[in-house]
């Protein structure tokens, strides 16, 4: 598989927050990660994407010291993670895809434990804990035992413990998986608020969230890096030109005739009709932009809207990872959640 380079992003001015070189992880005969070379620039919000088994979680587990690489190296802030130095983890916040806590502990106590391990003491610790609980909507639940928390509350607590010590690198493995819409909105706002002040690596199956918050993405497939770079460049480089036409209701016959005429056009690559919207993929955007509206007029169709579709990350994902990845995306444009044991 060839790594697709795109965009003309300048080389990072400072050393990357994360660097991997030839990072490889094997589980017996299974290659979970295959010579991964990755640079995550400081201050970026970096999306890590890929279908199930792509190697996202394996990469994160190696970066956080929970797993060992079979070969290659990974550095966080210039320090090799294989050295297993607590100083590196002091600069890092991490949220697991399925955060586990001590059920007997209160939420406040958990944050105090994490804060103390990070070197916080006294009033600074108490202030940070109280602020983190409030910030994650757990202000009233801090004195409750974690064993009584719902899945969403545990996820919020996971976020609170990850950001408590204001790390310069935040690694979030599928952070919105258990959150309700409000929690998801709050988390995305929190991540956006860190832009420029911290490096955030997000592995998620919600492609819309990646489009909203990430400025760079990497797509992995079967343990290998498929592409990496600024999101805007990725969309521009890989998305196919598309147009969306929404006919006014009650014109089924005319709309059907229009679809047939569109399918006959030279620049047509594909026409899909779904939920009253005609989506036209084209090979020559300029020609299509000139000719589509005359076709609409000559077909006698009245349109409610007509626009050149903004290419989505989903389109890019499908193009790069292949048709098999279509099975990984559900009707909402979400990558399907991984199965247990998926690496």
């Amino acid at each position, binding site marked *: 598989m060839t790594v697709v380079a795109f965009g003309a992003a300048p080389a990072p001015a400072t050393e990357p927050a994360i660097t991997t070189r030839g990072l490889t992880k094997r589980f017996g005969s299974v290659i979970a990660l295959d010579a991964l070379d990755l640079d995550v620039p400081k201050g970026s919000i970096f999306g890590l994407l890929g279908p199930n088994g792509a190697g996202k979680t394996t990469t994160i587990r190696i970066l956080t010291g929970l797993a060992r690489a079979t070969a290659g190296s990974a550095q966080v802030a210039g320090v090799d993670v294989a050295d297993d130095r*607590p100083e590196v983890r002091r600069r890092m916040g991490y949220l697991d895809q399925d955060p586990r806590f001590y059920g007997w502990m209160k939420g406040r106590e958990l944050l105090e434990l994490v804060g103390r391990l990070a070197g916080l003491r006294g009033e600074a610790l108490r202030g940070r804990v109280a602020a983190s609980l409030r910030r994650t909507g757990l202000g009233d639940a801090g004195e409750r035992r974690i064993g009584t928390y719902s899945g969403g509350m545990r996820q919020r607590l996971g976020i609170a413990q990850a950001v408590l010590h204001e790390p310069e690198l935040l690694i979030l493995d599928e952070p919105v998986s258990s959150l309700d819409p409000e929690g998801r909105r709050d988390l995305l706002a929190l991540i956006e608020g860190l832009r420029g002040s911290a490096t955030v690596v997000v592995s998620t199956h919600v492609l819309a969230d990646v489009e909203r918050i990430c400025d760079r993405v990497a797509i992995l497939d079967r343990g290998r890096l498929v592409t990496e770079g600024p999101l805007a460049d990725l969309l521009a480089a890989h998305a196919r030109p598309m147009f969306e036409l929404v006919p006014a209701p009650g014109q089924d016959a005319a709309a059907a005739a229009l679809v047939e005429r569109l399918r006959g056009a030279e620049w047509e690559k594909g026409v899909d009709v779904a939920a009253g919207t005609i989506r036209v993929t084209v090979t020559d955007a300029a020609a299509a932009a000139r000719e589509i509206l005359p076709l609409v007029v000559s077909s006698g169709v009245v349109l409610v809207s007509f626009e050149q579709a903004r290419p989505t990350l989903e389109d890019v994902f499908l193009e790069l990872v292949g048709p098999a990845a279509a099975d990984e995306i559900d009707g909402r444009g979400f990558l399907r959640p991984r199965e247990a044991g998926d690496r």
Partner: protein
Amino acid sequence: MTGFATLLRKEFLEQWRTLRLPVIGAVFFLIGLGSPLLARFTPELVKSLGGGQIQIVIPPPTTPDAVDQLIKNVSQFGILVAVLLAMGSVATEKERGTAALILTKPAGRGAFLVSKLVAIAGTLLIATVLAAAAAWFYTVVLFEALPVAGFAASAVLQWLGLVVFAAITFLGSTLTRSALAAAGIGVVALIVVGILSAFPSVAPYLPVGLGAPARALALGQPAGDIAGPLLANVGLIAAALGLSWLSFRRQEL
């Protein structure tokens, strides 16, 4: 040992919050109270069970009987408690994912292990001291006064023997992801110690070999040279902890 003090605090809070410390302390206290009582009243109990139909000759209870009863009870129940405390200490945290929570923070793996074993040893120490204090009190009431220092030293030897079993089970808990497998390793260690104790040249250096000097110290008698047995048992604990660390430092969580 980054984070040791914080993790030790967490371990003791866990021992308290999950009721292990208060329950074990209370049970050991009752064992301490009950041992001299049992020694004192066993002859009368046995006589009453005979119902006057048969003649049972039992020597009158003595202070050494009370001490023997205490050492036997603490040893038997204590080993069970030591294995139970240690069997899930690391394995359960690995299985539940809480070890991963802690070890992605600025905490060393060595600190993680040592804090756990120290907390287990601390719980056993508190329990053994409670048992010894209660036993000393009732021995004084029912039999005769015994030297406090000797009784305390005896308690320390009994405790050390329990920590050896805890440390071996702890090693098992580190090597596996199953608390039951760890308990199995603890039980196997108990069997091996039992077999080895049949060899007179080895027995004094094993945890069970601490019983004789513990008895002598409690009764205010010379315990002989206990430096060797002490060092041997401390060495066993250190070896178990060292092997735990060697295994755990490279483990994936």
